[in-house]
């Protein structure tokens, strides 16, 4: 399978995620779109790891070439999990203070 297919698939999902972040105002949905983006990247990394594996068929360490990509995906998932927990805590706190999850409400950085 040519690698371009995977690249384009991953990009599509990534751009959908960006469109979601820019378009939606509900903070939770924005957060979910961020997860979407992360997953797109995960997909691409795994695809690249398999590509390197394929490219190194003749090398001596053939057995483990490309495993770094999948390990990186593993760590991304770890980080995503941690980030989700903290992010949701923040959203809950914000909801408690303002009784709304509107992103435009949080314009304290103004001026």
């Amino acid at each position: 399978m040519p690698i371009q297919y995977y690249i384009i698939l991953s990009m599509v999902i990534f751009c959908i995620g960006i469109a979601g972040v820019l378009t939606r105002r509900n903070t939770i949905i924005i957060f979910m779109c961020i997860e979407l983006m992360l997953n797109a990247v995960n997909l691409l990394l795994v695809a690249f790891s398999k590509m390197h594996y394929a490219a190194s068929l003749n090398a001596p360490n053939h057995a483990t070439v490309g495993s770094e990509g999948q390990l990186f995906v593993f760590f991304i998932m770890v980080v995503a999990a941690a980030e989700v927990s903290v992010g949701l805590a923040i959203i809950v706190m914000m909801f408690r203070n303002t009784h709304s999850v509107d992103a435009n409400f949080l314009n304290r950085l103004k001026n």
Partner: protein
Amino acid sequence: MSATHILFWFLSALAVVSALMVLFSKNPVHSVLWLIAVFFAISGHYILMNAQFLAIVNIIVYAGAIMVLFLFVIMLMNLNKESEPRKNVWMKLAGAISAGSLLMILVSLVGQATEVSHKTLIMKDGNIGLIKSLGKILFTQYVVPFELTSILFLSAMVGAVVIGKKD
């Protein structure tokens, strides 16, 4: 077209459609459900590439833990279709256009890139996705980051608890 190809196209379509539905759903609970569908599709891609470990971890961690957490929070805040805040039409348009242009640029980038023009990847073969090989490398070469992630989790936990305290 071999079975692999068919599965690839099917899973890709599923992923894209589900992602779009995440975007367009009014009810946040529906968005969560569509996102779970996306995760399943991506796990399917992983299995197609023989990255078994990651496929399972994806399902367990993402679809299982993270999305459940999202649902908890949504339920907690009692969000449904009416309480969805309205968005400015122009902002929506601007967001869509910029994302679209980003996509086009990236696609053209891929078209021009020479390093990846004739590379292919092996779908079903290869042991690197198995738990055994990954585990070997993880616990020998990359053990330090592994330990660091445990500290990361600790700090995330502490942070979440501190932030969520009701004072």
